[in-house]
């Protein structure tokens, strides 16, 4: 099997699994209990909190564990909206956010908040002028993702952070795709809240975190206990936290080398696809993109058909966001960068990890060429296109 869907989830590294095991077996003590048996559980929570804080240039007390990226996004946006409602009810976000952010904003609109959805350019980079113009007296929160999950575009987070700070507006970033993939610094980038998810960087599923800058007023998400400074009650997912901590250490230890390797392989993949397959375009910015992300649109080809054929060749890929695959509408991200519907339907996302090899990519491109040609041969759109081309040529000859 060739796994090229690392934006959907990643392989838990052996170190992460090993780190979890003691807390699933011997050290099952509740971290809130007083006896020394629970000390190990308490300690691994603290160690992970310290490590994640340091990886973001934050303080330990600013990291809160959650059940994952979607929960972190929900919490940050809903609880901040509620806490700052006295100041205003206007929120700014982008058109290409993950649904965990978009649907939360839509929910708040029903609760009487106003949301401005700022557009992006053809490469998916947020329109800064539009963002600046959207700022109002009553704006309380700007939430813009650090990097896009579909097309990999990295946003000018520092600029957005500076803008928010200058206007005294809270800035949240969904960094689920970016954390432990590219360097992030909450101080330098003026980030007030940041969401992360363990399974996107070789950790277990069902565990994530939210960074909340000290001093930010934010309501509790889960009531019922003193865990996470009483802001997110419930007995901690100790094995998950241990696994996420080990995965974060693993990822940051190799970060520079991982980025370099993935960037090289990604560029190799993009070059091969763009030169060897006709009527294809790269979605997202050529340079300002996540090291492991490649996203293409093949004209006259429908995405799901392509995925099934790839699957039969042992290749795991995705068409747009995995969360979108149950719906019939093409990805909102691809529409936001200006792709027409039928071209958005023919998108393919290949996301690499540091474990990906050049041989694997060669196998993928070789097969992809055949699959695309096969599907086009069956496509009435391609038939019409070829016929029209033939007519044009005939007219030219005359």
């Amino acid at each position: 099997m060739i796994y090229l869907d690392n934006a959907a989830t990643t392989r838990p590294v052996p170190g992460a699994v090993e780190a979890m095991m003691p807390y699933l077996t011997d050290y099952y003590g509740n971290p809130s209990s007083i006896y020394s048996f629970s000390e190990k559980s308490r300690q691994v929570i603290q160690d992970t909190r310290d490590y994640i804080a340091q990886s973001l240039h934050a303080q330990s007390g600013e990291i809160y564990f959650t059940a994952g990226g979607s929960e972190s996004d929900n919490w940050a946006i809903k609880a901040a909206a509620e806490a700052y409602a006295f100041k205003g009810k206007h929120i700014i976000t982008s058109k290409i956010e993950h649904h965990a952010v978009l649907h939360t904003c839509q929910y708040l609109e029903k609760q009487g908040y106003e949301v401005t959805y700022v557009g992006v350019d053809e490469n998916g980079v947020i329109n800064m002028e539009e963002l600046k113009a959207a700022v109002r007296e009553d704006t309380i929160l700007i939430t813009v993702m650090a990097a896009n999950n579909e097309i990999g575009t990295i946003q000018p987070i520092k600029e957005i952070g500076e803008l928010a700070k200058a206007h005294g507006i809270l800035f949240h970033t969904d960094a689920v795709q970016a954390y432990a993939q590219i360097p992030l610094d909450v101080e330098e980038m003026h980030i007030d809240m940041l969401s992360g998810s363990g399974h996107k960087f070789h950790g277990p599923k069902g565990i994530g975190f939210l960074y909340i800058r000290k001093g930010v007023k934010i309501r509790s998400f889960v009531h019922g206990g003193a865990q996470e400074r009483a802001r997110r009650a419930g007995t901690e997912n100790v094995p998950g936290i241990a696994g996420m901590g080990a995965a974060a250490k693993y990822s940051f230890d190799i970060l520079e080398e991982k980025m370099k390797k993935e960037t090289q392989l990604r560029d190799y993949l993009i070059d091969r696809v763009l030169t060897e397959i006709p009527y294809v375009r790269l979605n997202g910015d050529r340079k300002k993109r996540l090291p492991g992300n490649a996203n293409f649109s093949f004209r006259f080809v429908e995405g799901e058909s392509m995925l099934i054929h790839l699957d039969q060749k042992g290749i795991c890929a995705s068409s747009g966001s995995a969360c979108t695959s149950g719906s019939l509408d093409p990805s909102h991200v691809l529409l936001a960068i200006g792709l027409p519907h039928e071209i958005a339907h023919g998108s393919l996302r290949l996301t690499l990890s540091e474990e990906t090899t050049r041989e694997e990519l060669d196998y993928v491109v070789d097969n992809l060429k055949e699959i695309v040609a096969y599907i086009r041969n069956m496509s009435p759109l391609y038939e019409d296109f070829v016929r029209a081309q033939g007519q044009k040529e005939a007219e030219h000859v005359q």
Partner: protein
Amino acid sequence: MYSEKVMDHFNNPRNVGEIENASGVGTVGNAKCGDIMRIYLDIDDKGIIRDCKFKTFGCGAAVATSSMATELVKGKSIEEAMQVTNKAVMEALDGLPPVKVHCSLLAEEAIHAALWDYAEKNHITIAGLSKPKSDIHEGEEAEEEEY
């Protein structure tokens, strides 16, 4: 996600292609929803569908329903072909996931559109057949994007 029959028709689609000087051609669906089906019919003097071919732009279910629909109408009379409903196509494929049911509707519409074309060309009326709603040309301007 898909039944074995759907996968079989997706992997080995029957009757893919075009028919030159076809008796009737029907194209339905639109690229906006991600599905376009085109069906070609070769109908003899006795009103028997001698051959049927298809081309489809769409998901796994769209390809499989097109393939099955051509199988179901091939060798049949026009009257029999009119009985090939989306339900019949779905049953023949051992069902489809709920979000893909519209694909089977498209297959039925594509057959009807091809029969309509045949009827118009031959100035005849086919009982129970009405003008197909074809919206394939929607969003055509957008297609002229640069590459």
